[in-house]
């Protein structure tokens, strides 16, 4: 028997449970577990968080009218707005239901996940130091009941701020990177391997 005949012989029967899904009402209720759909949901969650945190920054801006805090909050709010706009654009670009040729489809998935990661990385690199410095100053003010000028007049506080930044910023960045790799590392590797295999000549 030829390979083609053997292929035709292969059992094509699924189970009853799967066949029962072929009803319009059931199809409409199906939830996609597509990786791009997951990323879209994460972007929406990020946008909601971003709006909430910006509102909190707005409140702090009014509650603590000290110039170093005002400056860091304005910078962070500006960055939040930029991130929100970029996230929204990315959200609109990602389409889990586009049907191209297999290689192009895999490239679309790979690029979408990587674009989302790069955005997260930019957020991490910029927001962590500013948020850390803001938190340090705000915490110092609340804890000691002194003004920022009084707190930062001691050289030891500058050293402490520097050490916190040197340790926590790379740590947070590394943690975010680890989380991403844990969630999508294996998947990206699988996509890359398949894209390379498909586009290689032999």
């Amino acid at each position: 028997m030829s390979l083609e005949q053997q292929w035709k012989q292969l059992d094509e029967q699924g189970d009853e449970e799967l066949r029962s899904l072929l009803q319009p009402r059931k199809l409409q209720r199906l939830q996609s577990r597509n990786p791009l759909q997951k990323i879209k949901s994460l972007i929406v969650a990020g946008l909601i968080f971003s709006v909430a945190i910006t509102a909190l920054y707005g409140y702090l801006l009014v509650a603590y009218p000290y110039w170093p805090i005002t400056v860091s909050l304005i910078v962070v709010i500006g960055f939040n707005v930029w991130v929100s706009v970029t996230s929204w654009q990315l959200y609109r670009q990602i389409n889990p239901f586009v049907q191209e040729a297999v290689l192009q489809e895999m490239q679309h998935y790979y690029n979408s996940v990587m674009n989302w990661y790069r955005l997260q990385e930019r957020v991490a690199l910029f927001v962590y130091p500013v948020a850390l410095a803001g938190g340090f100053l705000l915490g110092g003010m609340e804890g000691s009941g002194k003004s920022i000028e009084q707190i930062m007049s001691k050289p030891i506080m500058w050293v402490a701020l520097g050490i916190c930044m040197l340790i926590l910023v790379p740590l947070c960045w590394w943690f975010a990177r680890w989380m991403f790799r844990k969630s999508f590392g294996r998947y990206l590797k699988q996509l890359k391997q398949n894209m390379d295999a498909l586009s290689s000549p032999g």
Partner: protein
Amino acid sequence: MSEKEFLAQVQANQGIIYKLVGLYVTDKEEKKDLYQEVLLQTWKAWPSFRGEAKFSTWLYRITLNTILTWQRKEKKMELRDDLENLSPAVPHKSLQQEEAQRLHWAIRRLAETDRAIISLSLEGFDNGEIADMLGISANHVAVKLHRIKQQLQNVLNTGK
């Protein structure tokens, strides 16, 4: 085209989905998830189906796209070491069924993209059609197919 027509077409061609999903996933739950995702993708893409290609060709493309962009579970695929240990799923299978099962086993030992290429070829698609579906050139397909067939024959002959 109507919803009814869509369901009739999928019903008539659902074997394609089962066959392809079975080549990539062994876990029962994951098979079910993947089957559902293929159905959903097909359902969402249905309004764009113009009938220029055959429904089965279109379904093949969607199924392969969904499988190859699916985020697999951590579980490792259970591949038996050699063909001799392949236990019969059906107690009294015919020789034809046994041969078909051997082929299924051998294809599953190939690289993921190779499985897609050989399944399309065995289904009767020509190199041009395969190239169109995969997004590579027909020459590329011919070279790959030659190598995959040799590899497949080797696996079938040696049973490893």
